[in-house]
């Protein structure tokens, strides 16, 4: 076990730009990280977090190219004068997407890949292999093909591969962002165990979506914005300031609630975990009222169904029974959240709804906006319902944003003037005016995502399914996109969001569908769904932090967002008077 002491990372006035003459991605970075510490680099998308990590092992600029000024010293080695393989002995980086950093054909080969590249003796490699597999709980997978592992297991494998290098510094670039709730939990558990052992110095980057999961394990938070360090300190101080909100990164829900409580109770601590907040609330608030009156006004879900599915089964050619008799009704003019683990059947259901897949049983029924999807051709179905896939780069192929949006419209056989009109409307609606003539693939990710959604929006389907719209977006961009979606719903449409972002969907959705093992586990208003704590546990779905706090405190009603929790606390504190606050 290491104790914080010796400096293992130092940035001396580092400025870096990818291309000569371009605006620097990182500017005047001065940073020192001590051995055995856990540091989070927090910032919105495009802040320079990944570049900063890749400077540690020389990938930037040795592989990427670019101009580096200043010095980066890692474990005493100058990254400018040491080779990437040499630096790889000291620092290991785990990337955001586990699927692209695993290249061997078995778990053991994958973990041994790094050490064998270092030319270590076979006995040492076997020792490291055992250590890395044990540390990540992957021992049982031995010769299994990584393609057969889940997202979380693949990320653990990437971490195991990094640990096998026995690095002084382990850098994790948004390690949870692409995982489903189970995957996040698996990876987080391993990270926590590694943190507890303090055998390595850890650096974790985060853009906001999973900040609540890492907030209680880090020793230090560094805030990076537009390539500059704008704050650096212990997490409680940093999270309690306004700095995160100013740069568009969400604060953990427990911090938001702690800050609100401080208005009533000056010494209330800034809490970083559910347990901590619940314990402190118990100490200071003797009695909570009922939360019912503080709940947000929700649209009635007793509406006409726009989607009706009965007994839908789907078996893939390989034999995987992905949907097992799904029956559901989706109310019209609502924002619907479709949640569940990877492999629970969400995507297969969506593909059946748009007619790209057809049920494998004869008695299934899928009626969407009055159209029998099973009997209709995809080209007819897409006039009523459409689907935006997760990765915008799998969709975009045109040379300008305008052409990209017009493509689907032309295929619908619309007149030129109508194509123009709808295209202009989509560009205006999604605030893409400045990028009309831009080459869409070179735009930042959040804009590419907007282009992808805009091009389907322009086809004016009454129902729009969007797969993981907020993945990879910082909090500000997430809010902006969700507001657009809400506006679309306001115009009489229905949007189904497939997501793992529980906090966002709990806050904005009118209706939730929870899937597990190819079946619909729960449906209803978010308050109703999140009150089914034990049923959700079956699907390994953890409700938002504020809901967990309610449960810890045994409150009768279910609170699902920070604003509701704050209203509730205000009410308890003001109404309660002496019985509210001690």
């Amino acid at each position: 076990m290491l104790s914080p002491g010796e400096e293992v990372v130092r940035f001396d006035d580092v400025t870096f730009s990818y291309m000569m003459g371009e605006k620097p991605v990182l500017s005047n970075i001065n940073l020192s990280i001590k051995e055995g510490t856990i540091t989070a680099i927090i910032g919105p998308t495009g802040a320079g977090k990944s570049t900063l990590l890749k400077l540690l092992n020389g990938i930037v600029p040795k592989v990427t190219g670019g101009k580096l000024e200043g010095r980066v010293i890692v474990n005493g080695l100058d990254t400018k004068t040491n080779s990437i393989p040499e630096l790889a002995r000291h620092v290991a980086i785990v990337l955001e997407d586990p699927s692209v950093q695993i290249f061997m054909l078995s778990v053991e080969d994958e973990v041994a890949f790094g050490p064998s590249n270092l030319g270590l003796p076979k006995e040492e490699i076997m020792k490291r292999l055992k250590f890395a597999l044990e540390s990540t709980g992957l021992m049982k997978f031995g010769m299994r093909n990584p393609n057969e592992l889940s997202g979380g297991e693949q990320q653990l494998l990437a971490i195991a591969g990094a640990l096998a290098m026995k690095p002084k510094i382990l850098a994790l670039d948004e390690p949870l962002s692409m995982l489903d709730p189970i995957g996040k939990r698996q990876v987080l558990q391993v990270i926590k165990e590694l943190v507890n052992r303090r055998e390595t110095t850890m650096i974790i980057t985060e853009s906001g979506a999973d900040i609540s999961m890492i907030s209680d394990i880090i020793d230090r938070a560094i805030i990076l914005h537009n390539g500059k360090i704008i704050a650096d300190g212990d997490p409680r101080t940093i999270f309690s300031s306004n700095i995160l909100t100013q740069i568009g990164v969400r604060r953990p829900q427990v911090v938001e609630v702690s800050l609100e409580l401080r208005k009533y109770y000056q010494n209330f601590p800034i809490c970083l975990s559910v347990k901590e907040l619940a314990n402190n609330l118990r100490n200071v608030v003797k009695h909570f009222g009922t939360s019912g009156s503080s709940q947000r006004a929700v649209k009635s879900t007793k509406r006409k169904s726009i989607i009706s599915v009965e007994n839908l089964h789907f078996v893939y050619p390989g034999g995987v029974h992905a949907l097992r008799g799904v029956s559901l009704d989706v109310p019209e003019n609502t924002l619907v959240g479709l949640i569940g683990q990877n492999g629970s059947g969400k995507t297969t259901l969506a593909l059946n709804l748009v007619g790209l897949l057809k049920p494998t049983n004869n008695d299934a029924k899928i009626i969407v906006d009055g159209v029998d999807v099973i009997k209709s051709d995809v080209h007819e179905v897409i006039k009523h319902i459409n689907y935006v896939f997760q990765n915008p780069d799998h969709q975009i192929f045109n040379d300008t944003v305008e052409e990209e949006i017009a493509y689907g419209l032309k295929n619908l056989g619309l007149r030129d003037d109508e194509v123009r009109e709808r295209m202009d409307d989509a560009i205006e609606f999604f605030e893409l005016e400045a990028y009309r003539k831009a080459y869409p693939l070179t735009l930042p990710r959040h804009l590419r995502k907007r282009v992808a959604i805009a091009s389907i929006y322009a086809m004016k389907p009454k129902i729009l399914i969007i797969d993981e719209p907020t993945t990879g977006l910082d909090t500000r961009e997430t809010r902006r996109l969700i507001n657009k979606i809400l506006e679309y719903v306001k115009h009489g449409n229905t949007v189904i969001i497939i997501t793992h972002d529980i906090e966002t969907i709990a806050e904005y959705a009118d209706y939730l569908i929870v899937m597990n093992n190819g079946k619909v586990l729960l449906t209803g208003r978010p308050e109703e769904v999140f009150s089914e704590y034990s049923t959700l546990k079956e699907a390994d779905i953890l409700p938002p932090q504020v809901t967990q706090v309610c449960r810890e405190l045994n409150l009768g009603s279910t609170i699902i967002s920070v604003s509701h929790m704050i209203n509730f606390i205000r009410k308890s504190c003001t109404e309660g008077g002496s019985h509210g606050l001690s």
Partner: protein
Amino acid sequence: MAFLEYRKRDTLIHNLHPISKVTIFLALIVIVGLYWDFKYLLLTCIVSAILYFLAKVPRSWLKPIITILLVSLPLQLWLAVLQTNPELYVVYPREVVATEVFVINLGFLGRVGITYGNMLWLLGWVLKWIAILFVVSVFTYSTSPLEIAHLMLLLRLPQLLTYTYIVAMRFIPYLQRVYREIMSIQRLRGWKRPSKINVKKWFESLPPIMKPFLSRTFLLSEEVSTAAQMRAFGSGKITPLIEHRIPLRDLIISALSMIAMVLAIIALVIYKVGLI
């Protein structure tokens, strides 16, 4: 399961060391490739069928095998009817191979038709296909990409070749998924797969699929190469981890396969065995 896809099973063939499987595969493919005489090819077909049975290759694979044979038959027939010249045949008696069943003169195309000679050639060609399809089926069904990768490492083949193979095997299924997803995405934007008969339209329909696919492929190769370098790939002193010991049974099988292949080549070159 898909045709020509590996499946982990406990069969005699699956349990062989990959070196045995590769040598058997190599020997049979070389013999089948060089020999034309139906007697020997029939023997290789029988051997391949036995291996097919021992490896417990699914019966459902016979359907694509038969389909491939039937689809390739018109081409084989066309090639066969062109080979009426008896001088093409060096082993069977001239009077036999020159016997004509039906031959016509097509001017610049020469004499076209059916002779005993080209019937022997066609029979050999069909048997070659049957043997090859059986052998390839057995090999792909019983040998995992991982076994091949380990064998390449064991044989100390060039690092770049070995890792290119490994990365290809790892990412081919991934890219297949990406390709299918891109097709689905564009279908939802009204893209239609045109008839291949209309070549112009067929080419025009490619960009919505191929542009995102190629872009993803290039990006992936860059990401993979970066990830490999981050784990010291290319430092030039890899420690091989593969077990060098090959079981005696597999050494014998490999040796016998190699001997059979060498003898077959010698017999062919010196004594024209296997030719027609």
